[in-house]
């Protein structure tokens, strides 16, 4: 029985800022951390990072949702990767805050939908703090703002209810890159970003701080750096 956990009612969430990481490397890092978390070698951990331009394919991806040809991808410098997470096609790139919670969900959180809703809730909380009103759309996982989809979610839960993958929040990405895909298989939906919604720029580190706290709160974790 964890006394500290009892008194605060919360288990800690360590936040690790990795900077810019290639998608494949991030997958490798997560695989290792998932094993480490399962073996209790590390605490619950939130990875915050950015990816170079990449199109990733989730397990339920429709290949036709990748619109750019391989030549176009090459000229734009976009990689194509299998993701090992749920969801459809997603684009990641600079200016997007990617968050990968490696969290051992406790028994009362053993619910995949609840976890998705918690991530959405955290993003909505964080966006509110930054001055943007985000919302859910019934049946469409992710977070939406007035101008369109602002954050994408796709997760994996490994044996022992250890989470990986997570969310990608458009802070200030070059939105033209989204034209290379049908994001998450949803057509006729615009993509927006935090900068676009606010009309001014917010420092990435500030967004990181706000989101780390929001994720910790939603998951009932105590946030420490």
């Amino acid at each position, binding site marked *: 029985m964890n006394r500290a956990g009892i008194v605060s*009612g919360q288990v800690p969430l360590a936040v690790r800022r990795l900077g810019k990481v290639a998608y494949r490397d991030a997958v490798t890092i997560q695989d290792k951390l998932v094993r480490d978390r399962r073996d209790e070698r590390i605490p619950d951990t939130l990875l915050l990072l950015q990816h170079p331009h990449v199109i990733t394919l989730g397990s*339920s991806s429709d290949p036709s949702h990748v619109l750019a040809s391989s030549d176009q991808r090459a000229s734009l410098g976009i990689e194509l990767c299998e993701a090992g997470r749920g969801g459809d096609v997603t684009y990641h790139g600079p200016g997007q805050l990617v968050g990968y919670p490696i969290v051992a969900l406790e028994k009362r959180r053993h619910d995949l939908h609840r976890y998705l809703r918690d991530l959405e809730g955290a993003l909505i909380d964080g966006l509110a703090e930054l001055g943007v009103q985000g919302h859910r759309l019934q049946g469409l996982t992710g977070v939406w703002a007035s101008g369109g989809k602002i954050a994408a979610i796709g997760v994996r839960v490994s044996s022992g209810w250890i989470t990986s993958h997570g969310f990608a929040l458009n802070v200030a990405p070059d939105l033209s890159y989204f034209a290379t895909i049908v994001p998450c298989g949803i057509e006729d939906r615009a993509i927006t970003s935090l900068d676009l919604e606010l009309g001014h720029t917010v420092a990435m580190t500030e967004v990181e701080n706000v989101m780390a706290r929001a994720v910790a709160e939603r998951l009932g974790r105590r946030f420490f750096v």
Partner: protein
Amino acid sequence: MPQMGESITEGTVSKWLKSVGQSVERDEPIMEISTDKVDAEIPAPAAGTIVSIEVDEGETVEVGTIVAYIDTEGVLSDNSSAASVATEPVLETPAPTPPPVEIPDPLVPPASQTVDSTAESVDEESVPTEDGVRSRSTPVVRRIAEEHGVDIALVTGTGHAERVTKQDILSYIEVGKEGEVDPTTAATSPQSTPAHSEVSDLWKTFYGQVQNPEFPVREGDRVEPMDKIRRLTAEHMVVAKRVAPHVHSFIEIDFTAIDRIRKDSKEQWQEQGARVSYTAFVVWAVSRLLPEFPQINGTVAGNNIIYRGSVNIGIAVDLDPGLIVPVIRDADNLSLVGIGMKITDLAGRARSRQLSPDEIQASTFSITNPGVLGTLVGLPIIPKGTAAILGTGAIEKQVVVIEDNVSGTDAMVIRKRGVFSLGYDHRLVDGADAARFLAGLKGVLEAFPEDA
């Protein structure tokens, strides 16, 4: 297909990580499933050998569907018999020696993780449809049935969830009619111990409908029929006391720290329109503790234990006359102020009789306040379907002896303290569990976090 979430009704098998004939450890991932936006690895519910895979990759099936069979006997035998088990997947042959306690069922389908799904599948199986036949038999049994031209729907299943075992179908073929299973083999089958049915009969007789005995009316007495709340309360209390062996433990808790928080935050709460009573603090503390004590937030159901997935706290409200227990759902997700507001709302609507039925259901733990009118403490009855109830005694000023931090000497000080009692179902909760829970509660309440 295990239940991976309350609102998840189906899953797609995206990848089998193990194939037929391979052995698996308990909790080793055996397959990956995907639902919208989530991929999940599914661990083996028991160690053994995979003898058949019932759902192919890419297929989407409902929660509760059997996706594979694991033979747990193989792990008990030597290599040669394990191999023969794998080549001829006999699933429910009675073991030569009783299986060890850790593996209660020789056959554990992944679906049998929740009581509810098992219960549902039993209901479905009583209808002899094609699906029903499939779900209450194994490939081996179906093959034997086919070879002998037997309709499986006519065979009584003695296996897990009334599944037709190989023994059942062979006995049926041998005897040529339903039900005449050799009693000696039936007795050796771990699924059909005669003791079980005896217990069931006893249970039924003993726990049948509650009857309140009649008493003679004397002169000057007044006789009134019980109203609905009284009648239901009477019945619930009798059943609760009959079923659960009650034990009570006590602890004394100091409310000085909480008093200080209440004084400091009073103005802020008033601005928020919130009333944060002692009970709100107790609900907050209890809801943060319960996830660490799953048995206290559980219940005995048949021969199973249900560990509840949410923390729903029932609060006894005095209606004078009568008593009702509205429920604060997912209390562990509410802040202290949120809990305070919820209590005010529920108690108010309880008194004006405006609660909806779902607001008095699904509590996983209850709190009652016998101390409200100065009573020292009570011995509360555990509401049926839960494992524990907390009684809060009167919180009053007392002279207590503490050790002075600075001088190290004993000192008499005036503190606000109250005695709390935990009533718990000893079938599920042991005295030490209760002691740990109460000690934890005392710890939280006496050093209450400022940011709750």
